[in-house]
């Protein structure tokens, strides 16, 4: 059932496909949608990487990796370069993805129009009609009120010029990585039971205005560990005096940078 939904999703880029699945013995918000998708696509030769906010070593990432190693008997890794399947929450790795790799996103809310139009039947109609004036209007309001597009996370994208899609809560910084990626991008929303996808080499554009092009923010400083200025950073408090440093959010990319 889930595989079927994945195939449909790949055939209609950016379009949300409902799926039926049994309840999992796991609370929503822990990545049930992502786990369902990962479970549906893993083969015996796959190598799985799981990240949470860019890190491989958080409790959630470690548990999911260990779970699949045990029940599917597959190999796991923390290295982006070695992974064939990467389940993620909040980030896309810094290292450019390769053909043959699959990203699996955990999605808390699949509907990009959710905040603008609370009636789900109406959002389906708007998708069918390709009527995204509301999303554009929200963007207009953000710029008018704050001087820039406000959504630092989960900034909506147009997929293949047809469907408006939530990229899941990744930072705007990662949005450009969806565009023309050689990898397969699969999105699983457990609570809402929706799957959607971006096939390889698909046009993915962040919603913007011609005269206010989408421009993700970069951290002001380089990484305190590896020195990278190109990566996405977490800002952390470094001492009792409230001093702050920036470090790479992608722990694997940071490790590579330090080598």
């Amino acid at each position, binding site marked *: 059932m889930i595989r079927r939904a994945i195939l449909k999703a790949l055939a209609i880029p950016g379009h949300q496909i409902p799926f039926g699945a049994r309840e999992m013995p796991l609370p929503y918000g822990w990545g049930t949608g992502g786990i369902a998708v990962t479970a549906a696509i893993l083969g015996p030769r796959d190598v799985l990487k799981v990240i949470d906010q860019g890190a491989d070593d958080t409790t959630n990432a470690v548990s999911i990796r260990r779970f699949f190693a045990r029940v599917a008997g597959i190999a796991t890794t923390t290295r982006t370069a070695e992974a064939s399947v990467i389940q993620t929450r909040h980030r896309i790795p810094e290292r450019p993805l390769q053909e043959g790799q699959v990203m699996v996103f955990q999605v808390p809310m699949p509907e990009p129009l959710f905040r603008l139009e609370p009636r789900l039947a109406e959002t389906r109609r708007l998708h069918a009609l390709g009527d995204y004036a509301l999303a554009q*209007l929200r963007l207009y309001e953000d710029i008018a009120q704050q001087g820039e597009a406000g959504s630092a996370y989960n900034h909506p994208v147009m997929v293949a010029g047809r469907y408006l899609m939530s990229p899941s809560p990744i930072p705007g910084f990662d949005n450009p990585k969806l565009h023309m990626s050689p990898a397969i991008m699969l999105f699983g929303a457990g609570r809402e039971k929706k799957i959607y996808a971006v096939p390889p080499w698909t046009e993915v554009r962040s919603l913007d*205005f*011609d005269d206010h092009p989408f421009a993700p923010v970069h951290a002001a400083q380089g990484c305190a560990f590896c020195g990278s200025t190109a990566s996405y950073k977490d800002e952390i408090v470094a001492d009792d005096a409230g001093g702050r440093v920036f470090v790479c959010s992608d722990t694997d990319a940071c490790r590579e940078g330090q080598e």
Partner: protein
Amino acid sequence: MSALLEADALHLRFGAVRALDDVAVSIWPGEVVAIVGESGSGKSTLLRVLSGQVAPDAGGVRYAGAEVHALGEAQRRRLMCTDWGYVHQNARDGLRMGVSAGGNIGERLMAAGTRHYGAIRDAAAEWMVKVELDPARMDDRPGMFSGGMQQRLQIARCLVTQPKLVFMDEPTGGLDVSVQARLLDLLRRLVGELGLAAFFLTHDIAAARLLAHRILVMRHGRVVEEGLADRVLDDPRHPYTQLLVSSVLAA
């Protein structure tokens, strides 16, 4: 030249109520047609049928050569945001109260494909001036405006895409008399400047005189009298119209 919109033999019942009973209407480019009648006479129902929102039980509506009720939803929506405008009696029904005045005006432009923020701001400012609102208040929400200002904002929101035909359902309905007069003046000026065709619903036949070229009088779902505005007002033929006209003169 041919009629911009044409409808004939419209019938629509709500249970036992004949809301529309064999109604025929047409409107020509640049023409303002007032539809006058007491509460419950079927004015709003007629407007909703003409604008494709409610299907009649029988009869058809043609716009620019197309049968309105045979259009797909996508086509009808496109008409609604390019060729047509709809002004609600209650501004709150026609505005997004959670969105700034500028956003309200800009929405139809964005729906029509404009993706230039600066151009949208410019158009919004220009339209605020045209409806006598201060463009400096472009980023205020409609809730901060008075009733008359909200109504003018709704009109700007509707006219920004330069529609050919506007449906106005008692646009001056809930307003104070002096505010009404100012709004009617504004509508008259805009309709003239833009060469708009408009249906203008009112139960106030005096307001119809100010704005309309032609008047249709409705009662119990039927058009009981129709003619050029001056003729209907100066020489009403149907007893019901005579009653309406004399009640205005007496007032």
